């Protein structure tokens, strides 16, 4: 558009997204909740790095930090991590496009397979942690 045409064009009302847009729709709220889950998870992982650093001083000098506040924070972080994993695996089924015998595998099957793998991996890791901690 030339400068003259722009000047002659009617004045448009510009769109501005309201600050509370994410409260106006349930899907938007769940989306923001999903994105927010990474904040406590990142903080918890930072704390884990601190604990690993402290553990490096040797078993004799190390006592794990076990305050009630940390336990509560860890439980909340676990819930956020479970929610994030649930949304991630559900959405990944939409992305993955697999064909078996020239027929596309339905998204639902891919999602279920991922949840099954997740459950198996959780059992294996849990078993290994308990086994080696004895």
């Amino acid at each position, binding site marked *: 558009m030339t400068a003259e045409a722009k000047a002659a064009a009617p004045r448009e009302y510009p769109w501005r997204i309201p600050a509370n847009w994410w409260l*106006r729709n349930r899907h938007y709220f769940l989306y923001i909740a999903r994105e927010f889950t990474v904040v406590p998870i990142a903080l918890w992982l930072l704390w884990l790095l601190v604990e690993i650093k402290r553990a490096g001083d040797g078993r004799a000098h190390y006592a794990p930090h076990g305050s009630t506040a940390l336990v509560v924070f860890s439980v909340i972080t676990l819930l956020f991590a479970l929610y994030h994993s649930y949304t991630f695996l559900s959405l990944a089924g939409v992305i993955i496009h697999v064909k078996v015998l020239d027929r596309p595998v339905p998204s639902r099957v891919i999602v279920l397979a991922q949840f099954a793998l997740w459950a198996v991996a959780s059992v294996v890791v849990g078993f290994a942690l308990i086994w080696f901690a004895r």
Partner: protein
Amino acid sequence: MADKRITIEAARYDPDKDERPRLQSYEIPFYDDSMVVLDALNYIKSEVDGSLSYRWSCRMGICGSCGMMVNGTPKLTCNAFVRDYWPRPITVQPLNNFPIIRDLVIDMDDFMHKLKEIKPWIIRKQEIPLGAGEHRQTNDQIDDFRQFSQCINCMLCYAACPVYGLNNEFLGPAAIALARRYNLDSRDQGLKQRLPVLADNEGVWECSFVGECSVVCPKGVDPAKAIQQTKLDTTLRFVLPYGNRD
């Protein structure tokens, strides 16, 4: 039925008079169960207030012209039945995320520009002469892209996308879904021409998967799926040694 009334609150904006859009209330007869919001607007225009401006054309969910926010949700007004809202008032506003020209009419230049950028047509390296016959496809090859070809460019997905609302440089759902439609078409050879636009910072990677574009699509297209699959494809093309093939 004849006595039923419905209140339509329509957004009004006259660029010569109004500082910002305002709502104007119209109480009109709800004359028929098959009445849609577009019928209500047409009634207002012909019987009550001829100055109300809005776009429409086919009245049958094909042209994609009559998209508006109906009670805060992007809808084709020809496909939004008044009976689903009655007796509550119906608020009709222009599509979110676009500048408003007048009343319910938005400026769609940005979308048209983006649509052109992704070259939504079949591109051949070398055209086959007409005499050589048609480009043949199997049903499976058509199934690969069929759902993405249902897009009618109604822009409801752009109105539902907060990512586009926050950053209108984002290429957006419909343009990417249409790019995927042609990239998946066995007759098309234009992938490399579309990739610079799709894989750009403001292309598929700007999307953070809200998913509302697929919820509001009146034709059952899944633009969120097209975007995420394009992310996967572009990553594989970058990572895999044979990924940069045509």
